[in-house]
């Protein structure tokens, strides 16, 4: 099973993603430079965190025009799994694969800490390994992670069960005290309507070993692997 980790100039979690995925049984992860134009042969695509193109203009605004992004869109439309963490989430919103946008944190600070998120959808392609309401401790590190969507979009996200993760207190409550950055409805991660494109501000890639403070990120990658295996066995 092959994962592509896209590298933009300014990506800085590409190595974290590659290391996390390479440590998983049966997975081969490879870098794909943003100037490449094909993603044929990969089972899943990872847009890593960082500061693609220096975050100039807006986070993800320039990266979305990189040559590889046409293939990312094409593969996403064909149903392939795509995950964007942190800067990758911002790129997915900028290119329109996910609704809404990420804006400056409410408190204006860059936040780097381990937070608790609650799994809101237990049967998604990215979280079916976690029962609904499970708490995942994941690191965040961002200055522009405040999720914004207008009311109509929010309603649709709720109705279609596209809100996958919310920031929660240590005992699993969703309230303002658990919201690190001002995101609407404590949203930490969403998927597209079809459920195969997932963006989240937290870094599962930085939470794949206990000695890093948490191994909860493995749940997300493991769910992706199982989804891909299930799709393959259905096709066979």
């Amino acid at each position: 099973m092959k994962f592509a980790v896209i590298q933009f100039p300014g990506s800085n979690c590409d190595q974290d993603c590659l290391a996390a995925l390479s440590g998983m049984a049966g997975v081969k992860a490879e870098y794909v430079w943003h100037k490449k134009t094909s993603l044929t042969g990969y089972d899943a695509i990872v847009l890593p965190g960082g500061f693609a193109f220096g975050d100039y203009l807006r986070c993800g605004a320039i990266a979305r025009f990189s040559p590889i992004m046409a293939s990312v869109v094409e593969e996403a439309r064909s149903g392939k799994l795509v995950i964007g963490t942190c800067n990758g989430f911002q790129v997915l919103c900028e290119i329109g694969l996910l609704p809404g946008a990420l804006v400056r944190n409410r408190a204006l600070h860059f936040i780097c800490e381990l937070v608790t998120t609650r799994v809101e959808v237990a049967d998604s392609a990215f979280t079916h390994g976690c029962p609904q309401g499970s708490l995942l401790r994941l690191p965040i590190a961002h200055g522009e992670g405040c999720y914004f969507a207008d009311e109509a979009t929010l309603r649709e996200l709720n109705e279609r069960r596209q809100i996958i993760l919310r920031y929660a207190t240590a005992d699993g409550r969703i309230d303002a005290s658990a919201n690190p950055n001002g995101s609407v409805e404590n949203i930490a991660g969403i998927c597209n309507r079809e459920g195969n494109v997932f963006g989240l501000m937290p870094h599962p890639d930085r939470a794949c070993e206990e000695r890093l403070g948490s191994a909860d990120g493995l749940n997300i990658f493991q769910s992706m692997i199982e989804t891909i295996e299930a799709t393959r066995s259905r096709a066979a």
Partner: protein
Amino acid sequence: MKVKVVVTPKAAVLDPQGAAVRDAMQHLGMPEVHSVRIGKYLEIEVDDKTPNLDSRLNDLCRDLLSNPVIEDYEVVKS
């Protein structure tokens, strides 16, 4: 020719920078200030003879220079 583009956050979008500057202005002796919104200002030098300048500029304002989910833009030519 010089084209100026002003990008501003939409009313519904939280603008914590603007709020911080508003507070500072109030503290510095202007309690009359009700609101500050902070956006971006771009000065663009472009060839006068550019074909379809207006529509191409507007396309780029929509696709690159602003994000219509969170921002509005205005183009001023001089």
